[in-house]
Each structure stands twice: as C-alpha cells, then as structure tokens.
C-alpha cells in the first residue's frame, strides 16, 4: 500500500550516501525540498537496488511530486504558478507539514 495519497505534502530527504558507489535516481536539485503528491504511478522494482544486480524486490511505490519552480530555483523569474513534476520513489519521501 502506498504510504502517501494524492494531495499529501511530502519532503524529499537527504539521508543517502554519496555517489558513487550508491546509485540514486532522485535528482540532486530536488533533495530537501517539499512538494505535493500529484499522482501515484504504481509500484516498481527498486532501481537503486537493480543497479547492483540485486532483485529490487519488494516493489516500491512511485509518486509524481509537484514542486513550485520558485521553490526549486532561487532566482526563478518565471510565472509564480509554474510547477515542476518529478517522479520519486517512496523511500525518498517523508511526510511534510503544510506550508513546508
């Protein structure tokens, strides 16, 4: 069962070892930031395990998370309402409070 629902506020955490030798699929620029679950994409084998030739099971829920562009880029000068959506596996996400 997915831990988060559509509309939940989530925060991308940072507590992962540096690369290499680990394999990380969540882009660096989004780590530590908060966004909103836009959809649940389903469950997939863990690519960060598959990368080491391991089975990648159990499957992990994958979410599409929506962030405000102006939260992501300090000097963003586009439309206030612009968003960026990134697909992130569940083990990268923590619950975040409103307005985080």
């Amino acid at each position, binding site marked *: 069962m997915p831990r988060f629902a559509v509309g939940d506020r989530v925060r991308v955490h*940072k*507590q*992962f*070892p*540096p*690369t*290499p*030798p680990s*394999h*990380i699929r969540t*882009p*660096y*620029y989004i*780590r*530590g930031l908060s966004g909103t679950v836009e959809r649940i994409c389903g469950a997939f084998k863990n*690519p960060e395990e*598959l*990368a*080491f*030739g391991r089975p*990648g099971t159990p499957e992990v829920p994958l979410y599409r998370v929506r962030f405000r562009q102006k939260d*992501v*880029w300090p000097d963003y000068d586009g439309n206030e309402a612009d968003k960026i959506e990134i697909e992130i596996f569940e083990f990268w996400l923590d619950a975040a409070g409103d307005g985080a």
Partner: protein
Amino acid sequence: MERDFTARGHHDMGGLDGGEIDRAEHDYALWEKRVDALMMLCTNRLKLMTVDQLRKGIEALPPEAYDEMTYYERWISSVTNTLLERGVFTADELGAKMEEVRARYPDGVMPGGAAGGGC
C-alpha cells in the same frame, strides 16, 4: 540542522550550466549499433545485466572520462566493467581478444568508424 549526506554525481547536471546543446543529427556508426545490440543481448536475452547496472556503471565513470567519452563509448565501458565484475570473462581474456582483433588491422584503422580503443 539536518546534515546533507548526499553529493551531486557528475552526471547529475540538473540546474547547472551545461553549455550549448548539440542538436545536429548524425548517423550511427556500425560499432555504435553493435554496442546497442550487445546491450540488448546482455539484458533481454542473456540476463547478464540490467539497464540499471548499465546506468550505474556510466555514472561511476570519473568526471574526466565521462566528459571525454561519446555516448556509446560510455555504454561499452559500463558493459565491459559489469561483465568483468560478473565474471563472464576475465581481464586477461578480454585483453587477449582485443590483441587478436587489433592484429587484423595492422594499419590501426578499423572499419565502421570505430574509434581507437573501441571493440
């Protein structure tokens, strides 16, 4: 204050100035098609590795190598290292085979536009 234990990988360029994007179309060289075919065989047919392993191997390249190599040179480097790690062949066997192939082209020019050091 939460400590940041992550580091930006060299390949992870989002938000950095990546310079000009080369939008030129080009044909694939024969060796590039062969690298692609080899990867398909190793993953889909022979189950010797996964595309995730290919990607990890590419991302583990030293920054200088990552920047200097072309797309399929990165691929064949990662495939080679993964198969070596997996024990599919040994470094000695690979070296002997490369010498054997090199000997077929005494003038150093390989067909199909293969770069020096290609397979």
